[in-house]
Protein backbone atom coordinates (compact mmCIF):
# COMPACT_ATOMS: atom_id res chain seq x y z
CA UNK A 1 0.00 0.00 0.00
CA UNK A 2 1.36 3.43 -0.84
CA UNK A 3 2.01 5.63 2.12
CA UNK A 4 -0.13 8.76 2.32
CA UNK A 5 1.65 11.85 1.07
CA UNK A 6 3.02 13.98 3.91
CA UNK A 7 0.74 16.92 4.64
CA UNK A 8 1.91 20.46 4.20
CA UNK A 9 2.09 22.28 7.51
CA UNK A 10 -0.37 25.18 7.41
CA UNK A 11 0.88 28.65 8.22
CA UNK A 12 -0.97 30.54 10.95
CA UNK A 13 -3.16 32.64 8.64
CA UNK A 14 -3.97 29.51 6.65
CA UNK A 15 -5.02 27.60 9.73
CA UNK A 16 -7.51 30.36 10.53
CA UNK A 17 -9.76 29.12 7.80
CA UNK A 18 -11.77 32.33 7.61
CA UNK A 19 -8.94 34.35 6.06
CA UNK A 20 -8.49 31.91 3.21
CA UNK A 21 -12.25 31.80 2.65
CA UNK A 22 -12.37 35.58 2.30
CA UNK A 23 -9.42 35.53 -0.10
CA UNK A 24 -11.24 32.94 -2.18
CA UNK A 25 -14.38 35.03 -2.11
CA UNK A 26 -12.53 38.03 -3.50
CA UNK A 27 -11.23 35.86 -6.32
CA UNK A 28 -14.67 34.59 -7.30
CA UNK A 29 -16.19 38.06 -7.00
CA UNK A 30 -13.56 39.48 -9.33
CA UNK A 31 -14.76 36.98 -11.93
CA UNK A 32 -18.38 37.97 -11.40
CA UNK A 33 -17.64 41.67 -11.81
CA UNK A 34 -15.50 41.16 -14.90
CA UNK A 35 -18.21 38.99 -16.43
CA UNK A 36 -20.98 41.47 -15.70
CA UNK A 37 -19.14 44.28 -17.44
CA UNK A 38 -17.85 42.24 -20.37
CA UNK A 39 -20.16 39.42 -21.31
CA UNK A 40 -18.12 38.54 -24.36
CA UNK A 41 -15.45 37.10 -22.04
CA UNK A 42 -17.37 33.83 -21.91
CA UNK A 43 -15.89 30.99 -23.91
CA UNK A 44 -19.37 29.51 -24.26
CA UNK A 45 -20.53 29.14 -27.84
CA UNK A 46 -24.25 29.77 -27.88
CA UNK A 47 -25.21 26.76 -29.95
CA UNK A 48 -27.52 26.58 -31.96
CA UNK A 49 -27.41 30.32 -32.53
CA UNK A 50 -23.67 30.32 -32.93
CA UNK A 51 -21.48 27.45 -34.01
CA UNK A 52 -17.93 26.45 -33.58
CA UNK A 53 -16.07 26.67 -36.89
CA UNK A 54 -14.97 23.13 -37.76
CA UNK A 55 -11.43 22.39 -38.85
CA UNK A 56 -10.87 21.97 -42.59
CA UNK A 57 -10.09 18.27 -42.13
CA UNK A 58 -13.13 17.60 -39.94
CA UNK A 59 -14.95 14.45 -41.09
CA UNK A 60 -18.67 15.16 -41.20
CA UNK A 61 -21.54 13.36 -42.90
CA UNK A 62 -20.71 11.76 -46.26
CA UNK A 63 -21.78 13.23 -49.55
CA UNK A 64 -21.58 11.84 -53.08
CA UNK A 65 -20.05 14.08 -55.70
CA UNK A 66 -21.45 14.46 -59.20
CA UNK A 67 -20.09 15.09 -62.67
CA UNK A 68 -20.91 18.30 -64.54
CA UNK A 69 -23.82 16.49 -66.20
CA UNK A 70 -25.33 15.66 -62.80
CA UNK A 71 -24.64 11.94 -62.70
CA UNK A 72 -22.82 10.49 -59.69
CA UNK A 73 -19.09 10.13 -60.08
CA UNK A 74 -19.18 6.78 -58.31
CA UNK A 75 -18.51 3.80 -60.60
CA UNK A 76 -19.54 1.17 -58.04
CA UNK A 77 -16.04 -0.25 -57.85
CA UNK A 78 -16.79 -1.57 -54.35
CA UNK A 79 -13.54 -0.23 -52.92
CA UNK A 80 -15.29 1.62 -50.14
CA UNK A 81 -17.54 -1.22 -48.85
CA UNK A 82 -14.48 -3.42 -48.95
CA UNK A 83 -12.31 -1.21 -46.81
CA UNK A 84 -15.04 0.00 -44.49
CA UNK A 85 -14.13 -1.40 -41.06
CA UNK A 86 -17.69 -0.97 -39.80
CA UNK A 87 -19.15 -2.74 -42.77
CA UNK A 88 -21.84 -0.14 -43.16
CA UNK A 89 -21.80 0.68 -46.87
CA UNK A 90 -24.23 -1.23 -49.08
CA UNK A 91 -23.96 -0.72 -52.83
CA UNK A 92 -26.13 -2.34 -55.49
CA UNK A 93 -24.39 -1.84 -58.82
CA UNK A 94 -26.04 -1.51 -62.17
CA UNK A 95 -24.96 -0.92 -65.76
CA UNK A 96 -25.34 2.52 -67.25
CA UNK A 97 -27.94 2.40 -70.01
CA UNK A 98 -26.02 4.60 -72.45
CA UNK A 99 -22.64 2.96 -71.95
CA UNK A 100 -22.63 -0.76 -71.05
CA UNK A 101 -18.93 -0.54 -70.17
CA UNK A 102 -19.72 1.81 -67.32
CA UNK A 103 -21.08 0.75 -63.89
CA UNK A 104 -22.97 2.99 -61.51
CA UNK A 105 -24.59 2.48 -58.08
CA UNK A 106 -28.33 1.83 -58.34
CA UNK A 107 -28.47 2.05 -54.59
CA UNK A 108 -25.83 3.45 -52.25
CA UNK A 109 -26.67 3.26 -48.53
CA UNK A 110 -24.51 4.15 -45.56
CA UNK A 111 -25.78 3.15 -42.15
CA UNK A 112 -24.73 6.15 -40.10
CA UNK A 113 -25.48 4.29 -36.86
CA UNK A 114 -22.63 1.93 -37.63
CA UNK A 115 -20.20 4.32 -39.31
CA UNK A 116 -17.22 5.19 -37.16
CA UNK A 117 -16.21 8.22 -39.26
CA UNK A 118 -12.79 6.82 -40.00
CA UNK A 119 -12.71 8.30 -43.47
CA UNK A 120 -11.27 5.14 -45.07
CA UNK A 121 -14.01 5.18 -47.70
CA UNK A 122 -12.88 8.61 -48.84
CA UNK A 123 -9.27 7.48 -48.98
CA UNK A 124 -10.14 4.34 -50.92
CA UNK A 125 -12.26 5.93 -53.60
CA UNK A 126 -10.45 6.09 -56.98
CA UNK A 127 -12.98 8.54 -58.42
CA UNK A 128 -13.24 11.15 -55.66
CA UNK A 129 -16.89 10.16 -55.60
CA UNK A 130 -17.39 10.13 -51.83
CA UNK A 131 -16.31 12.91 -49.54
CA UNK A 132 -16.73 13.78 -45.88
CA UNK A 133 -16.07 17.50 -46.22
CA UNK A 134 -19.59 18.67 -45.34
CA UNK A 135 -18.71 19.48 -41.72
CA UNK A 136 -22.20 18.34 -40.78
CA UNK A 137 -22.17 16.87 -37.30
CA UNK A 138 -25.87 16.95 -36.54
CA UNK A 139 -26.67 13.50 -37.88
CA UNK A 140 -29.88 12.46 -36.24
CA UNK A 141 -33.30 11.01 -37.01
CA UNK A 142 -36.35 9.65 -35.27
CA UNK A 143 -36.06 6.10 -36.60
CA UNK A 144 -33.21 3.70 -37.26
CA UNK A 145 -34.32 3.49 -40.87
CA UNK A 146 -33.86 7.22 -41.33
CA UNK A 147 -30.32 6.96 -40.07
CA UNK A 148 -29.42 5.05 -43.24
CA UNK A 149 -28.38 7.72 -45.71
CA UNK A 150 -29.27 6.79 -49.29
CA UNK A 151 -27.95 7.88 -52.64
CA UNK A 152 -30.18 10.84 -53.36
CA UNK A 153 -29.83 12.10 -49.79
CA UNK A 154 -26.06 12.08 -50.01
CA UNK A 155 -26.03 13.75 -53.42
CA UNK A 156 -28.26 16.58 -52.26
CA UNK A 157 -26.77 16.86 -48.79
CA UNK A 158 -25.08 20.17 -49.30
CA UNK A 159 -28.31 21.87 -50.39
CA UNK A 160 -29.38 22.46 -46.81
CA UNK A 161 -25.92 23.36 -45.61
CA UNK A 162 -25.74 26.95 -46.76
CA UNK A 163 -27.54 28.39 -43.74
CA UNK A 164 -25.37 26.37 -41.40
CA UNK A 165 -22.20 27.70 -42.97
CA UNK A 166 -23.70 31.15 -42.68
CA UNK A 167 -24.09 30.73 -38.95
CA UNK A 168 -20.41 30.06 -38.68
CA UNK A 169 -19.49 32.96 -40.94
CA UNK A 170 -21.70 35.33 -38.97
CA UNK A 171 -20.19 34.49 -35.62
CA UNK A 172 -16.68 34.18 -37.06
CA UNK A 173 -16.51 36.59 -40.01
CA UNK A 174 -12.79 35.94 -40.41
CA UNK A 175 -13.59 32.40 -41.55
CA UNK A 176 -15.82 33.48 -44.40
CA UNK A 177 -14.32 33.21 -47.91
CA UNK A 178 -13.22 36.54 -49.40
CA UNK A 179 -16.16 38.34 -50.95
CA UNK A 180 -18.70 36.13 -49.23
CA UNK A 181 -22.14 37.72 -49.24
CA UNK A 182 -24.81 36.86 -46.73
CA UNK A 183 -28.24 35.85 -47.93
CA UNK A 184 -30.00 38.50 -45.93
CA UNK A 185 -28.36 41.53 -44.43
CA UNK A 186 -26.99 40.88 -40.95
CA UNK A 187 -28.25 43.23 -38.27
CA UNK A 188 -25.62 45.69 -37.18
Amino acid at each position, binding site marked *: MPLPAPRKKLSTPESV*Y*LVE*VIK*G*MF*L*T*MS*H*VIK*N*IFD*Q*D*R*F*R*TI*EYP*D*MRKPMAARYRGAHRLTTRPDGKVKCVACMCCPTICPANCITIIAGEAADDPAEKFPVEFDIDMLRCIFCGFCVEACPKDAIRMDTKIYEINAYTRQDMVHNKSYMINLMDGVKPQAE*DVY*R*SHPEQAPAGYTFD*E*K*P*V*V
Partner: protein
Amino acid sequence: MSFEDVLPYLLVVAKCVFAVAFVMNIVPLLIWGERKGAAYIQDRPGPNRADIMGIRAGGLVHTLNDVVKLVMKEDIIPQHVERFYWALAPVIAMSVALVTFIVVPFGDYITIPVGGVLEQVPLKVSDIDGGLLFVLAMTSLGVYGIMLAGWASNNKFSLLGGLRASAQMVSYELAMGLSAVVIFLGAGSLSLSVIAEQQSGAIWNWNVFSLPGAIAFVLFWIAAFAETNRTPFDLPEGEAELVGGYHTEYSSLRFALFFMAEYANMIVASAVTATLFFGGYNVPFLDGATIRAHSDILVAALGFGAVPALLSFAVVAFKRRNRPFYRAIAADDIRHREPKFWVATWGGLAVAHAGIGVLGLTGIIGASSFGPDVVAFVLQLTALALKVLLGCWIMIWVRWTVPRFRYDQLMNLGWRVMLPLALVNVFFAALWIIVKESLFA
Protein backbone atom coordinates in the same frame (compact mmCIF):
# COMPACT_ATOMS: atom_id res chain seq x y z
CA MET B 1 -70.12 45.73 12.46
CA SER B 2 -68.45 48.68 10.84
CA PHE B 3 -65.36 48.54 8.73
CA GLU B 4 -63.29 49.96 11.56
CA ASP B 5 -64.28 47.06 13.79
CA VAL B 6 -62.98 44.43 11.41
CA LEU B 7 -59.95 46.47 10.43
CA PRO B 8 -57.63 45.06 13.12
CA TYR B 9 -58.47 41.50 12.05
CA LEU B 10 -58.06 42.39 8.40
CA LEU B 11 -54.73 43.90 9.27
CA VAL B 12 -53.54 40.70 10.95
CA VAL B 13 -54.52 38.69 7.86
CA ALA B 14 -52.88 41.25 5.62
CA LYS B 15 -49.67 41.13 7.61
CA CYS B 16 -49.62 37.30 7.51
CA VAL B 17 -50.14 37.29 3.75
CA PHE B 18 -47.50 39.94 3.39
CA ALA B 19 -44.91 38.01 5.41
CA VAL B 20 -45.48 34.83 3.41
CA ALA B 21 -45.49 36.75 0.13
CA PHE B 22 -42.27 38.51 1.07
CA VAL B 23 -40.45 35.20 1.53
CA MET B 24 -42.10 33.40 -1.37
CA ASN B 25 -41.37 36.20 -3.81
CA ILE B 26 -37.70 36.31 -3.00
CA VAL B 27 -37.36 32.52 -3.45
CA PRO B 28 -37.55 32.52 -7.29
CA LEU B 29 -35.21 35.48 -7.35
CA LEU B 30 -32.71 33.52 -5.27
CA ILE B 31 -32.96 30.44 -7.47
CA TRP B 32 -32.13 32.70 -10.39
CA GLY B 33 -29.35 34.35 -8.42
CA GLU B 34 -27.92 30.99 -7.46
CA ARG B 35 -27.67 29.81 -11.05
CA LYS B 36 -26.57 33.05 -12.57
CA GLY B 37 -24.13 33.70 -9.73
CA ALA B 38 -22.65 30.23 -10.07
CA ALA B 39 -22.35 30.73 -13.82
CA TYR B 40 -20.65 34.11 -13.57
CA ILE B 41 -18.24 32.84 -10.95
CA GLN B 42 -17.35 29.99 -13.30
CA ASP B 43 -17.05 32.23 -16.39
CA ARG B 44 -20.10 30.98 -18.24
CA PRO B 45 -23.31 32.75 -19.21
CA GLY B 46 -25.72 30.58 -17.21
CA PRO B 47 -29.38 30.03 -18.05
CA ASN B 48 -30.31 32.28 -20.95
CA ARG B 49 -32.48 30.42 -23.45
CA ALA B 50 -36.07 30.34 -22.19
CA ASP B 51 -37.99 33.39 -23.37
CA ILE B 52 -41.44 34.92 -23.28
CA MET B 53 -42.16 36.47 -26.68
CA GLY B 54 -38.46 36.92 -27.29
CA ILE B 55 -37.66 38.47 -23.89
CA ARG B 56 -35.27 36.29 -21.94
CA ALA B 57 -34.74 38.66 -18.99
CA GLY B 58 -31.26 37.32 -18.30
CA GLY B 59 -32.55 33.84 -17.50
CA LEU B 60 -35.32 34.86 -15.09
CA VAL B 61 -37.83 33.06 -17.31
CA HIS B 62 -36.11 29.78 -16.49
CA THR B 63 -37.44 30.02 -12.94
CA LEU B 64 -40.95 30.03 -14.37
CA ASN B 65 -40.03 27.03 -16.49
CA ASP B 66 -38.82 25.26 -13.36
CA VAL B 67 -42.10 25.76 -11.57
CA VAL B 68 -44.06 24.37 -14.50
CA LYS B 69 -41.65 21.47 -14.78
CA LEU B 70 -41.84 20.56 -11.10
CA VAL B 71 -45.63 20.77 -11.07
CA MET B 72 -45.99 18.61 -14.17
CA LYS B 73 -43.61 15.89 -12.99
CA GLU B 74 -44.93 12.60 -11.75
CA ASP B 75 -45.19 12.43 -7.98
CA ILE B 76 -43.53 9.10 -7.26
CA ILE B 77 -44.25 7.52 -3.88
CA PRO B 78 -41.78 4.68 -3.39
CA GLN B 79 -43.20 1.40 -2.04
CA HIS B 80 -40.83 1.17 0.87
CA VAL B 81 -41.39 4.51 2.60
CA GLU B 82 -43.33 5.25 5.76
CA ARG B 83 -46.13 6.97 3.89
CA PHE B 84 -47.43 9.35 6.56
CA TYR B 85 -44.16 10.72 7.91
CA TRP B 86 -42.66 10.74 4.45
CA ALA B 87 -45.45 13.00 3.22
CA LEU B 88 -45.31 15.12 6.37
CA ALA B 89 -41.59 15.90 6.19
CA PRO B 90 -41.54 18.44 3.32
CA VAL B 91 -44.56 20.20 4.81
CA ILE B 92 -42.74 20.61 8.12
CA ALA B 93 -39.59 21.84 6.41
CA MET B 94 -41.47 24.47 4.43
CA SER B 95 -43.95 25.67 7.05
CA VAL B 96 -41.33 26.00 9.78
CA ALA B 97 -39.20 28.09 7.45
CA LEU B 98 -42.13 30.40 6.75
CA VAL B 99 -43.33 30.61 10.36
CA THR B 100 -39.98 31.92 11.58
CA PHE B 101 -40.48 35.09 9.61
CA ILE B 102 -43.47 36.22 11.68
CA VAL B 103 -41.33 37.71 14.46
CA VAL B 104 -39.14 39.72 12.10
CA PRO B 105 -40.29 43.35 11.96
CA PHE B 106 -40.42 44.76 8.44
CA GLY B 107 -41.08 48.38 9.36
CA ASP B 108 -41.70 50.40 12.52
CA TYR B 109 -45.43 51.21 12.48
CA ILE B 110 -48.28 52.55 10.41
CA THR B 111 -51.03 54.77 11.80
CA ILE B 112 -54.61 53.69 11.22
CA PRO B 113 -57.86 54.81 12.77
CA VAL B 114 -59.35 52.13 15.06
CA GLY B 115 -62.68 52.95 16.66
CA GLY B 116 -62.24 56.66 15.99
CA VAL B 117 -58.77 56.90 17.59
CA LEU B 118 -55.54 56.85 15.63
CA GLU B 119 -53.51 53.84 16.58
CA GLN B 120 -49.93 52.90 15.74
CA VAL B 121 -49.87 49.34 14.45
CA PRO B 122 -46.42 47.71 14.61
CA LEU B 123 -45.34 46.18 11.31
CA LYS B 124 -44.66 42.63 12.32
CA VAL B 125 -47.00 39.72 12.25
CA SER B 126 -46.66 38.80 15.88
CA ASP B 127 -45.18 40.87 18.69
CA ILE B 128 -43.86 38.00 20.79
CA ASP B 129 -41.71 39.25 23.67
CA GLY B 130 -39.36 36.31 23.36
CA GLY B 131 -39.01 36.77 19.60
CA LEU B 132 -35.39 35.74 19.56
CA LEU B 133 -36.17 32.55 21.48
CA PHE B 134 -38.93 31.83 18.99
CA VAL B 135 -36.45 32.13 16.13
CA LEU B 136 -34.01 29.76 17.82
CA ALA B 137 -36.81 27.31 18.62
CA MET B 138 -38.13 27.34 15.08
CA THR B 139 -34.75 26.94 13.40
CA SER B 140 -34.17 23.84 15.51
CA LEU B 141 -37.64 22.55 14.60
CA GLY B 142 -36.71 22.95 10.96
CA VAL B 143 -34.34 20.01 11.22
CA TYR B 144 -37.26 17.76 12.07
CA GLY B 145 -38.42 18.01 8.48
CA ILE B 146 -35.04 16.79 7.31
CA MET B 147 -34.71 14.08 9.97
CA LEU B 148 -38.20 12.81 9.30
CA ALA B 149 -37.53 12.75 5.57
CA GLY B 150 -34.32 10.82 6.15
CA TRP B 151 -35.89 8.30 8.47
CA ALA B 152 -39.20 7.79 6.68
CA SER B 153 -37.49 7.31 3.33
CA ASN B 154 -36.32 3.91 4.61
CA ASN B 155 -33.10 4.20 2.74
CA LYS B 156 -29.62 4.20 4.19
CA PHE B 157 -28.41 7.25 2.27
CA SER B 158 -31.40 9.34 3.28
CA LEU B 159 -31.05 8.17 6.87
CA LEU B 160 -27.39 9.18 6.92
CA GLY B 161 -28.35 12.56 5.55
CA GLY B 162 -30.97 13.01 8.26
CA LEU B 163 -28.53 11.95 10.97
CA ARG B 164 -25.90 14.34 9.74
CA ALA B 165 -28.45 17.14 9.69
CA SER B 166 -29.45 16.55 13.29
CA ALA B 167 -25.86 16.19 14.53
CA GLN B 168 -24.92 19.38 12.74
CA MET B 169 -27.91 21.21 14.14
CA VAL B 170 -27.10 20.18 17.71
CA SER B 171 -23.49 21.31 17.35
CA TYR B 172 -24.12 24.69 15.81
CA GLU B 173 -27.29 25.68 17.60
CA LEU B 174 -25.27 26.28 20.78
CA ALA B 175 -22.87 28.69 19.15
CA MET B 176 -25.80 30.39 17.46
CA GLY B 177 -27.74 30.83 20.69
CA LEU B 178 -24.67 32.05 22.58
CA SER B 179 -23.86 34.66 19.98
CA ALA B 180 -27.46 35.85 20.12
CA VAL B 181 -27.04 36.19 23.91
CA VAL B 182 -24.53 38.97 23.24
CA ILE B 183 -27.23 40.94 21.44
CA PHE B 184 -29.88 40.72 24.09
CA LEU B 185 -27.36 41.43 26.83
CA GLY B 186 -26.91 44.77 25.12
CA ALA B 187 -30.52 45.32 24.17
CA GLY B 188 -32.06 44.14 27.43
CA SER B 189 -34.88 42.52 25.50
CA LEU B 190 -35.57 39.42 23.46
CA SER B 191 -38.10 41.13 21.23
CA LEU B 192 -36.78 41.62 17.72
CA SER B 193 -38.64 44.91 17.27
CA VAL B 194 -37.00 46.36 20.40
CA ILE B 195 -33.60 45.18 19.16
CA ALA B 196 -34.24 46.72 15.74
CA GLU B 197 -35.47 49.97 17.22
CA GLN B 198 -32.35 50.39 19.34
CA GLN B 199 -30.26 50.33 16.19
CA SER B 200 -32.10 53.19 14.47
CA GLY B 201 -30.38 56.40 13.51
CA ALA B 202 -26.66 56.54 12.71
CA ILE B 203 -25.06 53.53 11.09
CA TRP B 204 -22.68 52.97 14.03
CA ASN B 205 -25.67 52.21 16.21
CA TRP B 206 -25.83 48.85 14.46
CA ASN B 207 -24.87 46.01 16.72
CA VAL B 208 -22.22 44.76 14.34
CA PHE B 209 -20.17 47.91 14.96
CA SER B 210 -19.30 47.02 18.53
CA LEU B 211 -16.44 44.62 19.19
CA PRO B 212 -18.42 41.80 20.88
CA GLY B 213 -21.17 42.38 18.31
CA ALA B 214 -18.76 41.88 15.42
CA ILE B 215 -17.45 38.61 16.86
CA ALA B 216 -20.99 37.50 17.60
CA PHE B 217 -21.97 38.34 14.03
CA VAL B 218 -19.24 36.18 12.52
CA LEU B 219 -20.17 33.26 14.79
CA PHE B 220 -23.89 33.72 14.19
CA TRP B 221 -23.43 33.94 10.46
CA ILE B 222 -21.31 30.77 10.30
CA ALA B 223 -23.87 28.98 12.46
CA ALA B 224 -26.61 30.27 10.16
CA PHE B 225 -24.86 28.56 7.25
CA ALA B 226 -24.89 25.33 9.22
CA GLU B 227 -28.54 25.71 10.24
CA THR B 228 -29.67 26.36 6.67
CA ASN B 229 -27.57 23.43 5.41
CA ARG B 230 -25.77 25.55 2.88
CA THR B 231 -22.30 24.81 1.56
CA PRO B 232 -19.76 24.43 3.17
CA PHE B 233 -22.10 22.78 5.68
CA ASP B 234 -24.33 20.91 3.24
CA LEU B 235 -23.34 17.45 4.43
CA PRO B 236 -26.98 16.32 4.83
CA GLU B 237 -27.37 16.35 1.06
CA GLY B 238 -23.73 15.73 0.17
CA GLU B 239 -24.51 14.40 -3.29
CA ALA B 240 -21.02 13.03 -3.80
CA GLU B 241 -21.44 10.42 -1.08
CA LEU B 242 -25.16 10.32 -0.23
CA VAL B 243 -26.90 10.33 -3.65
CA GLY B 244 -29.21 13.22 -2.75
CA GLY B 245 -29.16 12.94 1.02
CA TYR B 246 -32.48 13.32 2.77
CA HIS B 247 -34.43 14.21 -0.37
CA THR B 248 -33.27 11.24 -2.46
CA GLU B 249 -36.73 9.65 -2.54
CA TYR B 250 -38.68 12.82 -3.26
CA SER B 251 -39.87 14.01 -6.64
CA SER B 252 -42.19 16.57 -8.14
CA LEU B 253 -43.80 19.09 -5.79
CA ARG B 254 -42.57 17.37 -2.63
CA PHE B 255 -39.02 17.88 -3.81
CA ALA B 256 -39.94 21.45 -4.74
CA LEU B 257 -41.05 22.01 -1.15
CA PHE B 258 -37.63 20.96 0.18
CA PHE B 259 -35.96 23.04 -2.47
CA MET B 260 -38.01 26.12 -1.60
CA ALA B 261 -37.58 25.48 2.12
CA GLU B 262 -33.82 25.75 1.68
CA TYR B 263 -34.20 29.16 0.08
CA ALA B 264 -36.87 30.26 2.55
CA ASN B 265 -34.46 29.31 5.33
CA MET B 266 -31.76 31.40 3.72
CA ILE B 267 -34.11 34.38 3.57
CA VAL B 268 -35.19 33.97 7.17
CA ALA B 269 -31.60 33.51 8.38
CA SER B 270 -30.58 36.65 6.51
CA ALA B 271 -33.55 38.57 7.84
CA VAL B 272 -32.80 37.54 11.43
CA THR B 273 -29.12 38.38 11.01
CA ALA B 274 -30.03 41.73 9.49
CA THR B 275 -32.37 42.45 12.40
CA LEU B 276 -29.91 41.41 15.09
CA PHE B 277 -26.74 42.95 13.69
CA PHE B 278 -27.51 45.32 10.81
CA GLY B 279 -30.35 47.44 12.10
CA GLY B 280 -33.18 45.40 10.59
CA TYR B 281 -35.56 47.65 8.73
CA ASN B 282 -33.65 50.81 9.68
CA VAL B 283 -32.35 53.01 6.90
CA PRO B 284 -28.88 54.21 7.94
CA PHE B 285 -28.97 57.77 9.35
CA LEU B 286 -32.73 58.03 8.83
CA ASP B 287 -34.88 56.88 11.72
CA GLY B 288 -38.64 56.58 11.37
CA ALA B 289 -39.38 60.06 12.73
CA THR B 290 -36.88 61.71 10.35
CA ILE B 291 -38.33 59.91 7.36
CA ARG B 292 -41.86 60.98 8.30
CA ALA B 293 -40.85 64.59 8.90
CA HIS B 294 -39.01 64.95 5.59
CA SER B 295 -40.99 62.54 3.43
CA ASP B 296 -41.43 65.05 0.59
CA ILE B 297 -37.75 65.87 0.23
CA LEU B 298 -36.81 62.19 0.46
CA VAL B 299 -39.28 61.21 -2.25
CA ALA B 300 -38.05 64.00 -4.51
CA ALA B 301 -34.38 63.14 -3.92
CA LEU B 302 -34.85 59.41 -4.44
CA GLY B 303 -37.13 59.92 -7.45
CA PHE B 304 -34.73 62.21 -9.28
CA GLY B 305 -31.69 60.35 -7.98
CA ALA B 306 -32.83 57.12 -9.62
CA VAL B 307 -33.23 58.75 -13.05
CA PRO B 308 -29.54 58.85 -14.07
CA ALA B 309 -29.01 55.26 -12.95
CA LEU B 310 -32.03 54.03 -14.91
CA LEU B 311 -31.00 56.03 -17.97
CA SER B 312 -27.52 54.53 -17.85
CA PHE B 313 -29.14 51.07 -17.78
CA ALA B 314 -31.08 52.07 -20.88
CA VAL B 315 -27.85 53.14 -22.60
CA VAL B 316 -26.20 49.83 -21.71
CA ALA B 317 -29.22 47.95 -23.08
CA PHE B 318 -29.04 50.03 -26.26
CA LYS B 319 -25.37 49.20 -26.73
CA ARG B 320 -25.97 45.50 -26.17
CA ARG B 321 -27.79 45.18 -29.50
CA ASN B 322 -24.33 45.10 -31.11
CA ARG B 323 -23.23 41.97 -29.29
CA PRO B 324 -21.99 39.10 -31.50
CA PHE B 325 -25.00 37.11 -30.38
CA TYR B 326 -27.47 39.49 -31.99
CA ARG B 327 -25.36 39.57 -35.14
CA ALA B 328 -25.30 35.77 -35.25
CA ILE B 329 -29.03 35.13 -35.06
CA ALA B 330 -31.24 35.50 -38.14
CA ALA B 331 -32.63 38.92 -38.96
CA ASP B 332 -36.21 37.89 -38.23
CA ASP B 333 -35.46 36.20 -34.88
CA ILE B 334 -37.84 37.51 -32.22
CA ARG B 335 -34.98 37.93 -29.78
CA HIS B 336 -34.03 41.10 -31.64
CA ARG B 337 -36.86 42.68 -29.63
CA GLU B 338 -34.88 42.26 -26.46
CA PRO B 339 -32.62 45.36 -26.55
CA LYS B 340 -35.58 47.48 -27.63
CA PHE B 341 -37.68 46.07 -24.79
CA TRP B 342 -35.06 46.87 -22.19
CA VAL B 343 -34.45 50.36 -23.52
CA ALA B 344 -38.21 50.96 -23.32
CA THR B 345 -38.42 49.44 -19.81
CA TRP B 346 -35.53 51.35 -18.29
CA GLY B 347 -36.54 54.53 -20.10
CA GLY B 348 -40.13 54.13 -18.87
CA LEU B 349 -38.93 53.54 -15.32
CA ALA B 350 -36.75 56.66 -15.53
CA VAL B 351 -39.78 58.70 -16.61
CA ALA B 352 -41.85 57.15 -13.82
CA HIS B 353 -39.19 58.03 -11.24
CA ALA B 354 -38.98 61.57 -12.53
CA GLY B 355 -42.76 61.66 -12.02
CA ILE B 356 -42.35 60.43 -8.45
CA GLY B 357 -39.72 63.12 -7.89
CA VAL B 358 -42.14 65.79 -9.13
CA LEU B 359 -44.78 64.35 -6.80
CA GLY B 360 -42.35 64.84 -3.93
CA LEU B 361 -41.68 68.43 -4.98
CA THR B 362 -45.38 69.30 -4.94
CA GLY B 363 -45.52 68.45 -1.24
CA ILE B 364 -48.82 66.58 -1.29
CA ILE B 365 -47.27 63.51 0.29
CA GLY B 366 -46.25 65.19 3.52
CA ALA B 367 -49.59 67.00 3.70
CA SER B 368 -51.73 63.85 3.42
CA SER B 369 -52.61 61.81 6.51
CA PHE B 370 -51.09 58.52 5.36
CA GLY B 371 -48.34 59.79 3.00
CA PRO B 372 -45.43 59.93 5.46
CA ASP B 373 -46.33 56.50 6.83
CA VAL B 374 -46.34 54.99 3.35
CA VAL B 375 -42.99 56.57 2.53
CA ALA B 376 -41.52 55.26 5.80
CA PHE B 377 -42.96 51.81 5.15
CA VAL B 378 -41.62 51.62 1.60
CA LEU B 379 -38.17 52.86 2.55
CA GLN B 380 -37.85 50.58 5.56
CA LEU B 381 -39.12 47.57 3.66
CA THR B 382 -36.64 48.30 0.89
CA ALA B 383 -33.85 48.60 3.43
CA LEU B 384 -34.75 45.22 4.95
CA ALA B 385 -35.13 43.61 1.52
CA LEU B 386 -31.73 44.90 0.41
CA LYS B 387 -30.08 43.59 3.57
CA VAL B 388 -31.79 40.22 3.12
CA LEU B 389 -30.78 40.00 -0.53
CA LEU B 390 -27.21 40.91 0.33
CA GLY B 391 -27.14 38.20 2.99
CA CYS B 392 -28.54 35.65 0.56
CA TRP B 393 -26.02 36.68 -2.07
CA ILE B 394 -23.21 36.12 0.40
CA MET B 395 -24.59 32.62 1.02
CA ILE B 396 -24.66 31.93 -2.71
CA TRP B 397 -21.24 33.46 -3.16
CA VAL B 398 -19.72 31.30 -0.41
CA ARG B 399 -21.38 28.20 -1.83
CA TRP B 400 -19.60 28.62 -5.15
CA THR B 401 -16.28 29.49 -3.52
CA VAL B 402 -15.74 27.10 -0.65
CA PRO B 403 -15.69 23.30 -0.87
CA ARG B 404 -17.67 21.17 1.57
CA PHE B 405 -16.21 20.36 4.99
CA ARG B 406 -15.19 16.89 5.95
CA TYR B 407 -17.38 15.55 8.74
CA ASP B 408 -14.70 15.63 11.44
CA GLN B 409 -13.69 19.15 10.44
CA LEU B 410 -17.31 20.18 10.80
CA MET B 411 -17.53 18.76 14.31
CA ASN B 412 -14.15 20.21 15.31
CA LEU B 413 -15.17 23.65 14.13
CA GLY B 414 -18.50 23.49 15.93
CA TRP B 415 -17.39 22.14 19.29
CA ARG B 416 -13.74 23.08 19.63
CA VAL B 417 -13.68 26.50 17.98
CA MET B 418 -17.07 28.13 17.78
CA LEU B 419 -18.54 27.05 21.09
CA PRO B 420 -15.59 28.23 23.27
CA LEU B 421 -15.29 31.41 21.24
CA ALA B 422 -18.99 32.15 21.68
CA LEU B 423 -18.76 31.49 25.44
CA VAL B 424 -15.76 33.78 25.86
CA ASN B 425 -17.55 36.37 23.74
CA VAL B 426 -20.53 36.35 26.08
CA PHE B 427 -18.31 37.14 29.08
CA PHE B 428 -16.46 39.71 27.04
CA ALA B 429 -19.74 41.36 26.02
CA ALA B 430 -20.92 41.51 29.62
CA LEU B 431 -17.62 43.09 30.63
CA TRP B 432 -17.85 45.51 27.72
CA ILE B 433 -21.31 46.65 28.82
CA ILE B 434 -20.23 47.12 32.44
CA VAL B 435 -17.15 49.13 31.40
CA LYS B 436 -19.17 51.22 28.98
CA GLU B 437 -21.86 51.99 31.51
CA SER B 438 -19.44 52.86 34.31
CA LEU B 439 -17.47 55.12 31.95
CA PHE B 440 -20.29 56.93 30.17
CA ALA B 441 -23.17 56.84 32.62
